[in-house]
């Protein structure tokens, strides 16, 4: 399974939408549930991501607290389902911390993402 951010249609790749969200560890389950409700069939999670946000720095690793650190969740969905997913996540983030990035990508095996 491969993906690229080099734009849709390049190299004969199928256009898809990539949705990335960064949330606190304690909110990962909520995002996963919205993924599931939208029919998302797979995602990638990266725990302990660090960075600087509007409310300050976020430490990337903590020895004994998995919940306080941020997690990046990344999924790719067909374009026709992207709005549904984005709408669900926006509803979630209206009152919970989190950021979301949406971009167009191309994938070589679209059947994995349908």
């Amino acid at each position, binding site marked *: 399974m491969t993906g690229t951010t080099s734009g849709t249609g390049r190299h004969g790749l199928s256009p898809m939408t990539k949705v990335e969200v960064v949330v606190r560890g304690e909110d990962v389950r909520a995002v996963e549930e919205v993924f599931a409700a939208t029919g998302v069939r797979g995602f990638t999670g990266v725990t302990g991501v660090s960075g600087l946000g509007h409310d300050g720095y976020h430490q990337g690793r*903590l020895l004994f607290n998995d919940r306080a650190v941020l997690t990046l969740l990344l999924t790719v969905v067909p374009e026709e389902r992207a709005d549904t997913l984005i709408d669900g996540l926006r509803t979630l983030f209206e009152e919970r911390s989190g950021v979301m990035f949406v971009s167009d990508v191309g994938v070589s095996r679209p059947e994995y993402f349908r």
Partner: protein
Amino acid sequence: MSLVAPALGPDAGDDLGATARLVALVRRAAAVLPTSWPLETFIATNPLAGFEDLPFEEAGLRAHGLFGAAPTLPEPTYRRLHAAGTISDDALRWAVGDAVGSATGTVVGSRPQGRPLTLGDLLVADLVHGRVPAPAPVAAQTLAARCDRLLGTEVGRSVDEEASWWVAALVGGRSGGWDPPDLDLGLYRSWRAASGLDRRLPRAVRRLLTAAPADPRHALRAGLDWCADDTTAGTFLQHHLVALPGWASLLHHRGTDALVDYLALRVTLERALVTTVGALDRVTAASGALVPPHTEPVVTGPVRLADALARVGATGADLTPDGRQHILEAFDRLPVDRRPFVWLAAHERGYRSALLGGLRSTEPAPRPAPRHAAVFCIDPRSEGLRRHLESVGDVATFGFAGFFAVAMAYQDAAGGEATPRCPVLVEPRVLLGERPSDGAVERVARDLRGRRVAAGAHDGFHEAKDDLVGPYALADAGGWVAGPLAVARTLAAGTYGRVRAAAGRALVPGSATELTPGLSLTLDEQVLLARVLLTSTGLHQAGARLVLVCGHGSTTENNPYRSALDCGACGGHRGAPNARVAAAVLNREEVRRNLDERGVVVADDTWFVAGEHDTATDEVTLLDQHLVPVSHRADIDDLQRRLGSAGRALAVERAGAFPGGPPRSGPRRTVAAVRRRSVDWAQVLPEWGLAGNAAFVIGPRSLTEGVDLGRRVFLHSYDAEADAGGDALETILTAPMVVAQWINCQYYFSSVAPDVFGAGTKVVHNVTAGSAGVVAGPGGDLCLGLPWQSVGWGGELVHEPLRLLTVVEAPPARIDAVVERNQVLRRLFGNGWVALAAREGPDDSWHERRRDGTWRTWDGSDLQEES
């Protein structure tokens, strides 16, 4: 049996967008729910954790509007504490000045006798004597509540009763000897199928229920169709969730799909009932949200001023024009509903100033290496044992979270289900199992058979007893022995306990087992574990021949909340397995060699032995003694004697804290009386647990050694000189301190809001729904929080509800750096959930970190920023 309908993935033909939004809406609404844990792994948590993004005061007021739970003690209670001298005038003046952001010494007028009248005089008069309006009633925004307010119906009660019965039945399985039909359909579908035929319901209601959507998602969406926007829908859902917060929290723990099922039941029944009384249009209109008029008169600033002036013997004519303006502005900044928070701050101020004033401010004198060292859990109960053990002599003590850096899932030799033995903040990183020692396989197998016989008899008796029908059969079959046994357990609890322990030993003699971390943990993982434990505490530098790694647990009888008395850092379990693993790792030659290469040197003649402190009896059991080399047997015997003396002294100390005070007899009888509580099945107060907890000290033992902290303080060892980068401090603040804050908040809210966030009296508790929790009496909501006997006795509160003060001996700049890079700490310190005091070393004065991150000296009269 499945609790809920098939997981909320999309169905063919389902509206994916609507489903995703519904899941997100429910999840968002449920963020206000307290976290619920099953009884066997009761974990203390902050019931207002969902509000920690807000300042403590705002969170408290928001929660009050939602749950009806008071965020502080009532003002009259604080006033009594003030009258009794527990809250001093100075503390009150400091707290109110801090709250209004003005110097309380500002002169605003003059008294008739010519003495100046200050801002502080009037603010304090308002606090001590001002009118206290009744709290505004909670205006629940469910349709049922609106209907009840409008028509005087009892729709809300009907919905709650139906919902709680069905959740209890489904979570607990067989209930009352009767299986609800179609369990496999899930909560909503099962209920809908049964209710459509329920003759207790009016025909019109049954018809509406039968016509309701069959799918819980569709039903819930239909129940939200009157909501103009997400905000209205979210508020509506939240009020349904907090109507029975115990059951809702339990379902939240299982996932949003369980909550959707539950909410679908509630809103569908509510809708049907409201419709049949003809109120649907009115309660779904915007005006339906109107709160009934609050009949209490508003206490305005001028009224408060007039009252305060009268109290100090002055009139408005005694104020200067500027002074009048000044005081009215101060009242604006301190509305009446915020006054209790000033009282809370004043209450905390007294304790905190006394604590900091009592800590040692001198460098410790050099002393010879002790024969023993001992590291205990940070739990405040360890403070008492450490203090007494040190006074016995030749022991240096340390503090570390009681999981001892072993984030494991543990399976005992009996092969039961593996359970997490680490703080819930972390996922277990390894599975470790207890195994027979070499040459002890047959003996362990025999012991396990004995253990199963004993456990089977015990479980069988209690399962039959807890069942609704079982007791009748049990009385027939076992009454002849149960009756005399009950008499023995009641009238001679101590003797019964000794006999039972002896019988247990006969059936289950001490097995020669061990935990072999080398089979599950890589060498690197073991070295990391050892390094974190040693360098955070400085344990290896004590120079002791024998080092005790001591977990804790609590032995109690007939106590559904027993795991609340066990080790929170071990996931609500006894701490022995973690202590055994840590000791085993620290004794391994390869680990020592690797540590040595990293500059962490453990003397060759040092042996680590695991132990467990029983906090109900203050006895310490040394574990895995069959592994101790001959060279250290005498040290073991010596340590055991010292632990025995310390434990007895601590038991005598604790005896004074039980209702009625200590028995008027010698120490031996007093100790026996304390230990009898542990085996008395009628005893609702086997020990006080962590009641009184109020502070968390991070620093060397020299800071607190010899100071009686009253078993109220979490103690974590920390050597700032060995942690220039702040890594150890970061670990302590982001993990053990967070757990301590949860515990602190659990005790706090169980005390100030016992009816909502406390579990009520144990006397009427019934364990329900398997071991999901307890209900008071025959039914109703699942109880949240701690039982009353954990925080009070009779009608009196024993636990002082104070927020946690974290005290650190480290450079403030290092503390700032750690806080600034961790949102969890910015949130807790910045929103006032935890206070922070620090000093760089013994020669420095204590400073307090304000919520905005600036520091000031602890002395309340000096509000100058220092850095």
